[in-house]
């Protein structure tokens, strides 16, 4: 595969970033679709209830809860796992950028990227807001 050997040029980093984003979205879409099909088979005939906001059940709100629900083959847990993969995709892109800037010894951008990653992790941890 071209671009996977040699020095860490911007061009090569861009290529890896592009592939990372694409695989994240594809993986997320497949998991959401699988969960969606099971969900519709199980609950398709029920009535939806979205006009009043109750909030999603608590097991579908945290990273641990979603993983626990997904491994027990609960359809909505599987959908949430896919959505979590999707949210994680740009975060993984930022994390990889730190690694890439470190290889380029670009100190300013290591710090900039670390700040962005910190904000993202703070948010995923609930934001404390």
């Amino acid at each position, binding site marked *: 595969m071209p671009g996977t050997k040699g020095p860490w040029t911007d061009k090569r980093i861009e290529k890896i970033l592009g592939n990372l984003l*694409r695989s994240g979205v594809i993986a997320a879409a497949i998991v959401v*679709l699988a969960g*969606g099909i099971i969900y519709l088979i199980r609950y398709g*005939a029920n009535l939806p209830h979205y006009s*009043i906001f109750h*909030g999603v059940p608590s097991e579908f709100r*945290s990273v641990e809860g979603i993983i626990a629900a997904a491994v027990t083959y609960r359809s909505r847990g599987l*959908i949430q796992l896919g*959505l979590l993969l999707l949210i994680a995709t740009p975060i993984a892109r930022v994390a990889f950028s730190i690694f890439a800037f470190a290889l380029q010894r670009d100190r300013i951008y290591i710090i900039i990227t670390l700040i962005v990653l910190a*904000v993202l992790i703070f948010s995923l941890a609930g934001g404390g807001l």
Partner: protein
Amino acid sequence: MNILEFTSLVWFGSLIAGFLGSLTGLGGGVVIIPFLTLALGVDIRYAIGASLVSVIATSSGAAAAYVKEGFTNIRIGMFLEIATTMGALIGAALALRVSTGIIAVIFGMVLIYSAYLSSHPKLYRAGDDHSDRLATILRMDGSYPSLNGLIKYHVQAIPGGFGLMFIAGALSGLLGIGSGAIKVLAMDQVMRIPFKVSTTTSNFMIGVTAAASAGVYLNRGYIDPGVAMPVMLGVLLGSLLGARILAGAKTRILRIIFAVVIFLLGIEMIYNGLTGRL
């Protein structure tokens, strides 16, 4: 209407929204939220959560292609993401505190402004030839490919662009949209970055910006699998189809029609927000 019918309807509506959003460059979020709330009576908080997730999907999907083409300026994007992610976090925190009526009114105003921007495309104002000191320190000046080889550009007015990006992030976090129009405005009008670099770098930043508020929304139960699943799958497919067609399409008339639709939706969102129906 049972869940199967509801899901199919939401999926199809999202497909159209993603398709039009990608053709006009305004994104799917501006249409999908009015569609879910006004047409299907979904609570605006579920609509925002679902839209935000679809924004991450389309942005990341498109960024994969743009980054490889060499237009996206990753350094500019990375630096401005400090502003957009912090803005998004504050926008999401605000969304948890203000009433849904106020959110609907702000949403309506953003729709009307987007309609105005879309129908009055601004000319790119070329920047000066000299380098900005801050841009040099941050190594932001770059080049992009064209038929006549690489074209170099210089970045200006970084503090102004940074400030506008913070507002773009806050609106994205508050309303669950990508706010790409404001991001492009900050880059091509304020920072004098060439249009194609601005649009692709804006798209590159949208996913990270949306992820910053998605975490908060997930924890607060706004992201419902039953709503987000058909929205995400529909918008993603629609925007991929839109990007395919975009290459050869004449989008001027479409943009005008879309601007009128968005303007009317904006009025309806404001009306429903003020009368306490949303």
